[in-house]
């Protein structure tokens, strides 16, 4: 499988060519090379990685004997499936990994969009206790939009960028699930 991979780590974003090939199982090499070995090509460099899925979403990976554990998950509110990025935790670092078939690559990124409308979604389940803005109001980046109460704490949801409040989906006093649309900023 051949992929274009975009990795976000902190403020850095990098694009890579990636190819994953399974080594042949049941060949003469099977006795010395376990069937869980993957051959990967990363920007043209080839390496062998022994990998096991320890638990759903947890991978133990040995590269030349060096042992890593990687946890793969989704960000709150992102959809399942490969169209949204994965958060991969390796050691103390989080990598946001976008996978694309190279022929489908679109340079739309996944971070804060500067242009066009943006939907603000609930980062966790909870109850809307206050909506702090009104329709058509201009907001600045970091301005409080609404307050969600969950686990006994009130959490202010802030605007990721400046813009105009185009729609308000959230209603005071109602419950929301993680990923529910709250407000649209244009």
């Amino acid at each position, binding site marked *: *499988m*051949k*992929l274009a*991979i975009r*990795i976000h*780590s*902190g*403020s*850095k974003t*990098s694009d*890579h060519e*990636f190819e*994953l090939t399974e080594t042949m199982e049941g060949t003469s090499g099977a006795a010395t090379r376990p069937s869980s070995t*993957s051959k*990967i090509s*990363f920007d043209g460099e080839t390496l062998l*990685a022994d*990998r096991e*899925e320890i*638990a759903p*979403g*947890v*991978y133990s*990976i040995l*590269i030349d004997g*060096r042992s*890593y554990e*990687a*946890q*793969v*998950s989704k*960000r*709150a509110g992102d959809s*399942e*499936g*490969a169209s949204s990025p*994965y958060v*991969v935790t*390796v*050691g*103390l*670092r*989080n*990598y946001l990994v976008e*996978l694309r*078939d*190279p*022929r*489908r690559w679109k340079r739309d990124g996944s971070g804060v969009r500067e242009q066009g409308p943006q939907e603000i979604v609930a*980062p*966790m*389940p*909870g109850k809307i206790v206050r909506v702090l803005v009104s329709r058509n109001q201009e907001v600045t980046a970091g301005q409080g939009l609404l307050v969600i*109460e*969950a*686990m*006994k*704490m*009130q*959490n202010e949801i802030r605007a990721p960028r400046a813009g105009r409040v185009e729609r308000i989906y959230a209603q005071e006093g109602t419950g929301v699930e993680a990923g529910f649309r709250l407000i649209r900023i244009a």
Partner: protein
Amino acid sequence: MFRKILIANRGEIAVRVMRTCRELGIGTVGVYSEVDRKSLHVRYADEAFCIGPAPSTESYLHIERILAAAKRSGAEAIHPGYGFLAENPGFARACADAGVVFIGPPVSAMELMGSKTSARHALIQAGLPVVPGTDRHLESLDETHRVAEGIGYPVMLKASAGGGGKGLRLVRSAAEFESAYHTARSEAQNAFGDPAVYLEKYLDRPRHIEIQILGDRHGRLIHLGERECSLQRRHQKLLEECPSAFVDGELRQRMGETAVRIGKLAGYWNAGTVEFLVDQSRNFYFLEVNARLQVEHPVTELVLGIDLVKEQIQIAAGERLMWRQEDVRMRGAAIECRVYAEDPSNNFFPSPGYISRLQVPAGPGVRRDSGVYEGWTVPLEYDPLLSKVSVWGTARAEAIARMRRALGEYEVLGIKTNIPFFRRLLEHPDFAAGRLDTGLIDRVLAAGLMEEEPPSPEEERVAALAAALHVRGRQEKRIPAPAAASAWKSTGRDAAVNRWPRREGWRNG
């Protein structure tokens, strides 16, 4: 001694109290709300009774239902844990009326010390040091605003009935006042059923250090040294230590004696905590008395070798304290980290939900007090505290190394926790050097503690491989029989369910 005790709480603290009961051969009665049927404390208890729906006011704060469960089970005493009804004198009185022993301080001491304003007032009368501020509830926005101007910004708005960081707001300027006032009152109303707030001067970079006190019903009251609780976020403690790196023998003695004086002033017995703010010149000011067992009590237990819950139960049963002040010896150093269901890489938003995987730390010097298990769903109705990891070492440096190791072993999947935050905090030079104050966490977060470190090229390869394996594995599960047609050509459902093409399509890409 009691034969059966009801624990009027949930989560890790309910399990913690039951553990000591079991060691003492005392039967345990748990209570639970409808959403807590599968909670660990219900499974651990010898008997358990449902006391109502999820909202605390209908269950864990519902005095009649808890007492009915006590009556039905024949429990002779009630341990309230912390939070909920632990510092509610009305509950302690209702227990006495129902002929059940309340495991805690006398009602009179709870009444005097439970309200921060009356406690402040009593201390000022006795000439003991308090933080400048009001010693009464403030009635209106206008009055509160006027008083704030008088004390001078920054000021702290606090819930009179409060604790645990709820109903607390720092106000740095007049412009922030009105919104902070409303938020503090609304949080106080929701958390404690009482919106009353008062004001205090906000000290610059103070430490929060508290003294554990323990007294029996026969007039002996001692202190058990200090806990360093300066590491807080939104006024909620995150990491506590015993002893404090800042406190020497002389300061410990002065603070300890003051705490004992305050306890005696209140006619206190059982376990309690006297909280102080300590400024950079080692002046200390009384903050409040927590008339209950504290969340962070394990660090004291580890360093002193005393089971505080056992002491509480024995004191409530009328036994004499077996410790004299001179018997109290501190040995080594302990640290506790409070593991919360919250996402440190997304503004610490709460993260309730299903725990799909749980691998817990163990090994030398590690203690874990937990209320969760793998396969359990963390409800969104209650506190986000999942567990507490405490470690003991011969000295602070060993304890820090041990905590780093323990948190590296701790794996929780399905929900987010603040473990990654602790792992970074423990590496921070100010923490390692013991340069702590109540603003440190906010400063290190603002300085980018949770920002990603420079990526490591090999980790990027590992991350890419893991993500690719993950996607492929998920697809094999979802689409079991590989279709002959290429995914590129399929339309409709396939494309809608999964915008990701199948393996066959990628090979010759």
